[in-house]
């Protein structure tokens, strides 16, 4: 049923990537993504491919899981390939009326789709190995310096944390109300669009009522404990860098420099 949906896609584990500080992972992922766009030659793509493989290996995630992350976006990957294959000028491999596929097009298409696949895999490694709450902590900590310019880092992070915290609760609630109404003969899955929307009322009304009730209760509970925003707030789990964070960041930077060097030396 509905509660079978896992929150985000965090896959608990104990690997090198899992243990990295979330800030390191966010920054490293951003740098890695930028460096993907530096690659232009086969050699560079080879290096990239090996590094992605290394990262996947370090995460110790099941290969199937990583492959699954590409699944929702395969349409875009295929579309990218097709558009490049048809629209790049070059020697024609295949011609029919006004349509032609060129050798340069196929080459470009493969490389571009690969780029996309790398992008998806690397960013899903971040969400697979970092629980949403830790990720939020990392984002807050990274945004903190921007507070001077009026970015409400703590408030944003708190909002994200609360939202994340209540997703499973609301899913559970939805599941329960849905079951209760189904037990009373409600039908959520048949009929035309308008009828189906109307059929959702017995689900949505109680859900909204309960969401407002919960929000109200939470607000009162926070106020009762004198919550007043991020000023001078300490936390239970302090983020701390470890040597492995240096290793990871160094590795990603070295990769980026290598790719930059390959690009300008034309290797």
């Amino acid at each position, binding site marked *: 049923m509905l509660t079978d949906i*896992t929150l985000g896609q965090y896959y608990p584990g104990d690997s090198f990537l899992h243990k990295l500080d979330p800030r390191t992972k966010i920054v490293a992922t951003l740098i890695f993504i930028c460096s993907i766009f530096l690659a232009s030659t086969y050699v560079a793509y080879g290096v990239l491919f090996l590094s992605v493989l290394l990262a996947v290996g370090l995460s110790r995630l099941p290969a199937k899981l990583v492959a699954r992350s590409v699944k929702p976006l395969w349409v875009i990957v295929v579309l990218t390939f097709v558009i490049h294959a048809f629209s790049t000028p070059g020697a024609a491999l295949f011609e029919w009326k006004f349509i032609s596929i060129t050798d340069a097009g196929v080459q470009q298409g493969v490389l571009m789709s690969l780029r996309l696949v790398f992008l998806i895999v690397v960013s899903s490694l971040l969400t697979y190995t970092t629980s949403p709450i830790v990720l939020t902590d990392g984002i807050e900590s990274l945004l903190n310096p921007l507070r001077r310019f009026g970015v409400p880092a703590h408030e944003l992070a708190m909002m994200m944390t609360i939202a994340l915290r209540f997703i499973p609760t609301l899913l559970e609630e939805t599941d329960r109300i849905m079951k209760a109404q189904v037990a*009373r003969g409600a039908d959520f899955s048949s009929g035309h669009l308008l009828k189906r929307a109307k059929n959702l009322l017995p689900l949505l009304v109680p859900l909204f009522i309960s969401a407002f009730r919960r929000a109200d209760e939470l607000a009162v509970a926070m106020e009762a404990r004198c919550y007043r925003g991020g000023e001078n707030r300490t936390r239970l789990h302090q983020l701390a860098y470890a040597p492995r964070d240096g290793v990871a960041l160094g590795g990603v930077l070295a990769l980026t420099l290598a790719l930059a060097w390959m690009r300008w030396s034309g290797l």
Partner: protein
Amino acid sequence: MSIKLEAVSYTYMPGTPYEKRAISDISLEIEKGEFVAIIGHTGSGKSTLVQHLNGLLHPTSGRVLVDDIDLAAKTPEAKKIARSVGMVFQYPEHQLFAETIYEDVAFGPRNLKLDEAEVRQRVELAMEFVGLDYGKFAHRSPFHLSGGQMRRVAIAGVIAMQPDYLVLDEPSAGLDPAARNAIFAEIVQLYRTRGITVILVTHNMEEAARLADRMLVMAKGEVRMDGKPKEVFRADRELLHAAGVDVPRMVELVDALRLKGIDIPEDTVSVDSLVREILARQRRENAC
């Protein structure tokens, strides 16, 4: 006519790291006209088990038969028979949605495709049954009622479907004693006058001992004991404690009295019968 479970197991989220087996290999039969209490600790699988009884969950393995029809079959009969099992969830007042109490209670009967006159009659009957005056309440908003009254509206919404089997999951949770007693009195009345089968999930032993004529004790997704309340409470205490079930105070009292050498039959579970026993003993002693 019965609800029959054949080696039913259910696993939540199979094939993920969060996989959890909620109930395993449960076989039992609930006859029509029984009043069954299912007791057990939080997380013992009670709620998962009862959701199988009207096809909200289908077993990962095994079968659930209601009046000999398999609920997992995707036939109109299976759908129809599932509706003969009414289900009152925990905190049922959270499912109220309509603008008036009438509309909310009528939701179930309307889904049964009854004509409006029949729907109206059933709503009246159901509201009367849970002690809500039709003339006074029918056109009020359910959201302006007290907690106990809201729960009655929700229970009326299930009763209005006139189920042959009624499953109640912790119907008294979070109510004050007066509201709790009122709700149980209504359930018992329903059981006696309509002859429906009642399946009551609770962790209140006193309630279970007082109302039910059969008791299932669940622990770790299995039915550990099955019998009359007297028998269950007289059975192995170790087993009961392992299941996280406390013995009713009455049983403890009788135990304590017997330890003091006062001879009271072991199977005394109600206050009335205990008083009778003690009075009888006194009379005997005075006669000597």
